C-alpha cells in the first residue's frame, strides 16, 4: 500500500549554516514504527538527490515519536550567503512530507495507515 508521509507525520525544519534539519514526528505514537522502519537513510538520500548537494544524517528519537534528519549542502551556502528564497530551510519540512512509502498491506492495515491514491 502506498502511504504518503504527509498523511502520517508532521514536521518542522530549520538551519545551521548550510545544513537544514528536518524533524519528522509521527501523527500517532504507534505510527513511529513506520517512520523508524521505512524512512531509512537511503530512502531520504534518494528523495533529496539533486535537491541538496551534501550528505544526510539520520537520528532516532522514539521518546518523541520522531526522526531527525540533517541535510547537508541544502541551503545554497546558508545564512546571508544564500540566494535561495528558503535560505533558512524553513520549508524542507514539507518537502520531506512529499515522500511516498510502500508499506506491506498487512502492516499498513494493522496500523490503520491512510492509503495514498495520488500520483
Amino acid at each position, binding site marked *: 500500500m502506498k502511504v504518503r508521509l504527509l498523511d502520517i507525520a508532521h514536521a518542522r525544519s530549520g538551519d545551521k549554516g548550510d545544513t537544514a534539519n528536518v524533524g519528522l514526528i509521527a501523527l500517532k505514537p504507534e505510527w513511529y514504527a513506520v517512520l523508524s522502519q521505512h524512512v531509512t537513510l537511503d530512502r531520504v538520500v534518494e528523495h533529496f538527490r539533486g535537491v541538496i548537494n551534501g550528505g544526510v544524517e539520520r537520528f532516532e528519537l522514539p*521518546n518523541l515519536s520522531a526522526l531527525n534528519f540533517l541535510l547537508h549542502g541544502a541551503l545554497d551556502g546558508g545564512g*546571508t550567503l544564500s540566494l535561495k528564497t528558503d535560505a533558512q530551510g524553513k520549508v524542507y519540512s514539507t518537502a520531506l512530507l512529499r515522500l511516498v512509502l510502500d508499506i506491506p498491506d498487512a502492516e499498513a492495515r494493522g496500523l490503520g495507515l491512510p492509503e495514498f491514491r495520488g500520483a
Partner: protein
Amino acid sequence: MSTPKIVRVAGGQGFWGDSLDAPRQQVTRGPVDYLMLDYLAEVTMSILQKQKERDPNMGYARDFIGAMESVLDAVVNKGVKVIANAGGVNPEACAAAVLEMAAAKGAAGKLKIGVITGDNLLSRIDELIASGHELRNMDTGEPLSVVRDRVVAANAYIGSTPIVEALAKGANVVIVGRSTDTALTMAPLRHEFGWGAEEWDKLAAGIIAGHIIECGAQCSGGNCLHDWRSIEHLEDVGYPIVEATADGTFVVTKHAGTGGRVSVPTVSEQLVYEMGDPHSYITPDVVADFSSIRLAADGENRVRVHSIVGRPATDKLKVSIAYRAGYKAVGSLVYSWPDALEKAQAAERILRERLIRLGLHFEHILTEFVGANATHGRLAGPDAGKDAPEVQFRIGVRDADKKKVERFTREIAPLVLNGPPSVTGFAGGRPKVEEIVAYWPALVDKSVVQTHVEVIS
C-alpha cells in the same frame, strides 16, 4: 503539606523583530516571575557592531528599551525580573538607555541592572591567534586567519553562570551580550532552586525549557503544521510560559484566554527545530540529551516535560564570528497566465545571455521560479507551475566585486519592455545591492573567556 515552589519564566521575544507587544502581554495577562527576551540571531552581532562603529553609544537591540518601558510597571510594582540578551556589543550603553528611560518615567532608583560583559572577543582576535587559538571554522575546518582582515564581530556564546551571579547580587534586570538563548531561561531556575553547576540533569532540563520557549510563539501554536487549521485565535496568540519545579520537571503553558495552543504536537515541533545530534545538545553549561525528554498532556494548553538527562559540559565555548563576504542582489519579475512559467523561463535565458555578453560572470548565480520550484525544487513534480495563474522569476547573484553586482541590478527592469510578454511586479524598482556579512562558527577554550558582572542602579 506545602505545595512545591513553582517558578514561572515567560518567553516574550523570539528574535529581534518579534511582536513588540508580546513582552507587555506576558507580564499583564497572568502571573510570571521572570520575563526572558531573546534578541540575537547569528548575524545580529555584526549589524550591532557596525552601529557601534558609527556611534559609540549604540550597538544594542534598541527594541529592548521600548519593551522595558512596556513592562516597567510589572518590574517595579510586581517584582517581575527581566533577562535579555539585548546588550549586543554594548551592554553598558543598553543599561544606560534603560536607566534613562526609567528615570524619565519616574522610576529612577527602582531598577538594579546586572550588566554582563566579557563575551566580546573582537579586540582580542590577534592575541588569540598569536597564542595558538586558530578559531577554525566548525563547518569547513579553515583557520580564521583566512578571513582575519574581514572580521567585523566576534563573540563567545556564554552560559548561565554570570546571569545567576547577577541575580544573586539582586539585579531585577539582567542585560547580556552574546549569551546562549537557552541560558536566559535556565539561569533564573538555577538561581531560584540553587541548582549546582554539576547537577547535569537539572541543568539539562533548564536548557530544554529554554529551547522550547526561546522562539516565542513557535511552541504555542505559531508556525505549527500539526492540525494547523484548528489552532484558533493566532491574532491573540499566547506566548509561552515555563512553570518549573526544583526537581527539574516543568510544564509549558500560556496565559488563560490567549489564542494559539500548547500541546504535545506543538511542543514536539519546537523541540526538533534547528536540532543537530539530539543526543548531544552542547551548551556552555551542560550537554543535554533530547532522547531522554518525556512529554505528557497535563490539561488544557499544558504539557508536562520530565525525565531529562544531561552530561558534563565540554571545556570549549562556541564563538560567533562575522566577516565581510562580498555582495549580493536579488531581483524579480512576475509573469502572468497564459504560459506564465514558460515566459519566466524565457526571461531567464535572455537575461543570462545578456549578462554573458556584458562580460559579467559571477561567483554565484541562482534562479528560482516562485510558483513552480522555489521551495521544493524537482520534488514539486514535473507539472509544477504548469498553467499557473502567475509565476515569479527570481534571480540572484553574489560576487566580491560590488560594481559587477550593481551592473546586474540594471538588467532586470529593461526586460519589462524588451523581453517576454505579460510581465508585471517591478514596482519596487531596481534591486538593492547588499553587503554580505557571513557567519563563521568556531570553538575556543573556556579558560580564555572571562565574564564580568556589574550591578548598577
